[in-house]
């Protein structure tokens, strides 16, 4: 009530306008910057299936929690302002509760805005994140033991995660079976991280942007190009004799 109520509305509006405009636009700017600061997603926070790329998601999700409500396994939760995730947005932490990869995608169907993309109808196409075996020093399989738990619990077993045989240099007699994740099939459900038997999981699921590297755009893999072309692109190569140390057990001669 800083202005006399008898003043006509329009003039009062114009009088207050400059100050109000300045204050409000400054506040908007502040809120904008706060939002940008608060928008960083920590490495252990995963978005529900079908979530748009993080930037688009923060423009699309209106933080209603309908996805959270329809998740039958209470996997999803809305971020509290005290959490590291943008307040009110849905996420899950694999080590706490993983996504059960429901066939009928109740979370996606519940989303009124399409922040969870309704085009996703097959849960195996979801990319909530990507599993990475981050610690080769503690993973029991890397120690030469047989744990295999992450491999066995994977809903996309043998495609998202496989066991690759490798020689055990330590014992020099045994094999190691290395859990190996394949990004073309891993949905990022988090089951492997959740189930890892270590105190702190050796396999972790990260948001894709964190987990994936990217080749230089110009990069071509010679062997793939060769296969595509049905033969070497640079013609036959001169075969040079292999040079080996005198005591090498390998045969001498031409290397293929």
């Amino acid at each position: 009530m800083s202005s006399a109520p008898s003043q006509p509305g329009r003039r009062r509006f114009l009088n207050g306008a400059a100050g109000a405009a300045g204050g409000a636009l400054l506040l908007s700017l502040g809120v904008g910057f706060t939002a940008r600061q608060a928008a960083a997603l920590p490495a252990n926070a995963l978005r529900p299936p079908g979530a748009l790329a993080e930037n688009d998601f923060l423009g699309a999700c209106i933080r209603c929690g309908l996805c959270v409500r329809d998740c039958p396994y209470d996997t999803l939760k809305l971020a509290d302002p005290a959490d590291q995730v943008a307040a009110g947005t849905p996420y899950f932490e694999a080590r706490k509760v993983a996504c059960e990869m429901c066939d009928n995608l109740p979370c996606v169907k519940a989303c009124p805005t399409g922040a969870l993309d309704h085009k996703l109808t097959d849960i195996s196409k979801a990319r909530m994140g990507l599993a990475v075996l981050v610690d080769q020093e503690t993973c029991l399989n890397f120690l030469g033991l047989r744990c295999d738990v992450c491999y066995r619990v994977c809903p996309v077993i043998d495609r998202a995660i496989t066991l690759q045989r490798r020689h055990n240099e330590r014992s020099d007699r045994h094999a190691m079976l290395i859990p190996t994740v394949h990004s073309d099939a891993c949905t990022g459900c988090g089951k492997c991280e959740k189930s890892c038997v270590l105190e702190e999981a050796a396999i972790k699921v990260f948001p894709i942007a964190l987990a994936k590297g990217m080749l230089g755009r110009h990069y071509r893999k010679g062997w793939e190009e060769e296969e595509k072309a049905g033969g070497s692109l640079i013609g036959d190569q001169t075969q040079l004799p292999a040079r080996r140390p005198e005591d090498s057990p390998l045969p001498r001669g031409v290397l293929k």
Partner: protein
Amino acid sequence: MNAPGAVRPASGATGKSMPLQPGHEAIASKGWLGAHKWLIARRLVQFTVLGLFLAGPWAGIWIVKGNLSSSLTLGVLPLTDPFVLLQSLAARHWPAAAALTGVVIVMLFYALVGGRAYCSWVCPVNVVTDSAAWLRRRLGIKTGKVPSSATRWWLLGGLLLASAATGMTVWEFVNPVSMAHRAIIFGGSAAWLVVIAVFGYDLLVANRGWCGHVCPMGACYATLGRASLLRVSAASRSACNDCMDCFVVCPEPQVIRPALKALNGAGPIIQFPECTNCGRCIDVCSKNVFRYAHRFDQRSA
């Protein structure tokens, strides 16, 4: 009519004794219940809405799911808040059908009953700011500085620009309304700090500061209800005895005078979209000057 020392916004009284509360005349003539009828009705509606949202998580009775930003009632009725969806649009996301249907329903409803009926009949923060205003009156607090009530309009525009610039629904990072509601329905602790801040702001810094001057969501709803059918009318304005009680309780006191005093030949209908249709003026008037009416009802006595 009034004892000296009663709180009067226009005269700037500085009574040291316990100020007489507005509405004591109405209580004397209509009884306590009669003088709080619409206030009680509003609180009932506000808490019923809250109760419907809470029945799911607390008792497993899923009538309404979601929160005030977007909800689904009985599995069929989607409702979406216009301001949050506007931010989303500004951020260049075209929402899916459910959110669009929901926002159309909400807009039609409030275009009819007055946009800011949302503020006084639904919004949980209204309970907080009403309490702060009541306590401020009670304690005779006069400190602080009130921002221009145009701030909210600029903020409304500024935040949409900021949403467009960042591609994010920026107000939702700090919005006390959605934060409070989410904290009640989905749990969460830190959100309460924002609510306490709003309470403190209204109590110590600015009388009716938040809802009356700052909140861009209230401004958005006001815009929606610009031509609403349901309005309050100072129908019996000739009976007004200038006790000023309506001005004291009204969250937007500037809206009353033209209709009440027939300024520039104004009709009795309170036309300002800022009026929240809360009905406190109806309650608090011992002369029964005000009543709910429709916007074309120009009858007055």
